[in-house]
């Protein structure tokens, strides 16, 4: 089955609500969970489902994505047959448009879709955090005779959150809305579509290429066969900085960790060959995630460290995220802080945000 499906992942969208965190990177390459980037979930899910041909629509700032995925080695995508295809995205308009699947990005890369014999394309965004075994969804798509199958999760806490919500009846999508009230079926930026139908969209809408694929589907709901497929597992939605902090803290929950990293399949990421994490004799570490390459001499609580982070003697890191190579010097105190990569916090600094509004320290800062 998976051999008849190719993947298409859109990384060409961004969001102003992340401030400095996405100033020079796309949302797709936002570091997450101690050693991952958001994109890893989409790519790994596809690879774990047996998909070996994946097109990546690159964002305007694609350096960090290229640095991360390379030739796709860690995902077994450096292949003779199939593999990773980099599809240059168009320069996006206002970030606030929130358009994840602009048709012109697909039109520009039509050859990717034309030169395959795959019948179906699995299209995914790159900023939602979930680990799924796609095979039941593939089977449901087949059983329904193809068309379009959209993945959703029923949530209770979407009130006031922007997103796409599906009205589902009899496993078919009846309508889509942008506003949520009460329990809603949140579209997970992930759908299966017959390749020929997708190519038809490219043809029919070639003069309206700024529109979003999901809007096209919405406009044609009456004429199309659009199934809905429910997802029951953990869905991390990163829409702004406080979401980012909340989703990071979710990882400290055993069930979430098992769902994301234990059950369905491995989430793969770039390998760095760091040494094991080293703890000194006086450390206090509680309820935290620590990857390789870290040196800890101080106190770390309810926090997520990334590779190569260092916490000096007497330093305290609480409810915080310290990205790669962050150096917290002896005696510094951090509470509700997100340190981007390569940040140094020197001794004596006391930095704090609030759980709802974490303080963000931009990349390469020295404080």
């Amino acid at each position, binding site marked *: 089955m998976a051999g008849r499906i190719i993947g298409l992942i859109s990384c060409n969208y961004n969001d102003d609500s992340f401030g400095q965190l996405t100033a020079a990177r796309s949302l797709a390459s936002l570091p997450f*969970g*101690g*050693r991952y980037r958001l994109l890893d979930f989409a790519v790994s899910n596809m690879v774990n489902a047996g998909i070996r041909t994946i097109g990546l629509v690159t964002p305007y700032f694609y350096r960090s994505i290229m640095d991360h995925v390379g030739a796709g*080695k*860690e995902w077994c995508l450096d292949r003779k047959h199939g593999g990773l295809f980099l599809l240059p995205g168009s320069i996006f308009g206002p970030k606030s448009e929130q358009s994840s699947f602009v048709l012109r990005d697909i039109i520009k890369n039509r050859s990717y879709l034309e030169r395959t014999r795959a019948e179906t394309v699995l299209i995914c965004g790159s900023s939602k955090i979930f680990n799924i075994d796609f095979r039941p969804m593939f089977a449901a798509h087949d059983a329904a005779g193809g068309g379009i199958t959209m993945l959703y999760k029923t949530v209770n806490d979407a009130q006031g959150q922007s997103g796409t919500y599906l009205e589902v009846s009899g496993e078919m999508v009846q309508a889509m809305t942008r506003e949520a009230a009460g329990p809603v079926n949140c579209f997970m930026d992930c759908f299966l579509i017959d390749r020929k139908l997708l190519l038809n969209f490219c043809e029919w809408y070639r003069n309206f290429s700024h529109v979003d694929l999901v809007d096209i589907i919405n406009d044609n709901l009456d004429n199309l066969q659009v199934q809905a497929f429910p997802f029951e597992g953990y869905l991390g939605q990163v829409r702004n900085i406080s979401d980012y902090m909340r989703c990071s803290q979710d990882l*400290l929950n*055993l069930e979430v*960790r098992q769902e*994301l*990293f234990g059950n369905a399949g*491995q*989430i*793969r*990421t770039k*390998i760095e*060959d760091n*040494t*094991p*994490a*080293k*703890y*000194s*004799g*006086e*450390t*206090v*570490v*509680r*309820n*935290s*995630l*620590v*990857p*390789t390459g870290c*040196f800890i001499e101080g106190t770390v609580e309810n926090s*997520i*460290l990334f590779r190569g982070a260092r916490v000096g003697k007497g330093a305290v890191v609480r409810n915080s995220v310290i990205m790669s190579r962050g150096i917290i010097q002896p005696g510094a105190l951090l509470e509700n802080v997100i340190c981007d990569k390569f940040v140094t916090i020197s001794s004596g600094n006391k930095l704090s945000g609030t759980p709802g509004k974490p303080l963000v320290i931009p990349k390469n800062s020295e404080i």
Partner: protein
Amino acid sequence: MRKKECIAMLLAGGQGSRLGALTSRIAKPAVAFGGKYRIIDFSLSNCVNSNIDTVGVLIQYRPLALNAYLGTGAPWDLDEQDGGVFVLPPYATQAGGEWYAGTADSVLKNLDFIDNYDPEYVLIISGDHLYTMDYNKMLEFHKQHQAELTVSVIEVPLEEASRFGIITAGEDGEIQRFTEKPKNPDSTLASMGIYIFDWPVLRSALQEDAANEESEHDFGKNVIPMLLAQRRRLFAYSFSGYWRDVGTIDSYYEANMDLLAEKPEFDIFEQGRQLYSNANIFPPHYVGEKAVVQNSLVCNGCTVLGEVRNSILSTEAYVGPGAKVEDAILLPGARVESGARVMRAIVGERAVIETNAYFGSQDKEQPIVVVGDNEHVADDLWSGRY
């Protein structure tokens, strides 16, 4: 194939029988070390860091784990178009099949492999030593002295000298005497089992040695003494720095524990040092609400809910709530279930210390205890409670 200046032959066929349970199912080079490494990683990393891109790995004893671990060589960047890592097992011919009869014999049986690259020099190394070395410097020395064979040597304490191949060399480094495990050593320069040969010299020496029916076909015991007797140009290259052959459980345990020092002698943490390994991709380790982790190394995929002190937790190890691990090494996937206690012990890969079980002893006079891979230690009143 393109001619190479220098290729490496890595001896990885030995059992390492003195490591007991640790090598009952895997060869010594495949034994886990330092949390996320296997012993062979250190010599492979040395090759890569010395720009040697062609490595023949000679295997014989229980090779499955080693084969699987080496794969295409990609984790060490040894997946080369022209060269790379080659696993070389004993093989059958029209004349029948034979095992490798000794270190020299294993290289002899792979003359075809070396001839393919027509190298000027062949580096012979072991897959079971811990050290960091730039082989280029040794090769430089070899060329400068117009040596036919260069043996890397290290200063050892006189009382330990009888465990090694001992070399007496002149001021200029020319080797005068070589005695394998001498009873009364007259020098403290020990061979590290690292050799650089001129390829034509090695080629003919191996063939000559093969014709000698009394030979054990061992580099140290036979080939080097033979070349010395022939008055060939043999030189000793002095290496200073950390070098260990972790041959026994005690030395394996100590070498691991040495990594916990603030500035370890074998400093794998040194900035700018690149050690490669074939690591699976596991999430960062989780340290629980009530956990204690002090003076320890912890790898990805671990879960620590109990107390861990002065210990090494390899990839995917688990320490349950209320469990205590002290002065111990948990190998990849080892589990210490809730309430269990592990002291001065090595817990094998995927081995389980069951709920409330005791394993090991705090008594420093007692030997280090080992539970083999996949084995279980149950809660038993008599299981070594101190």
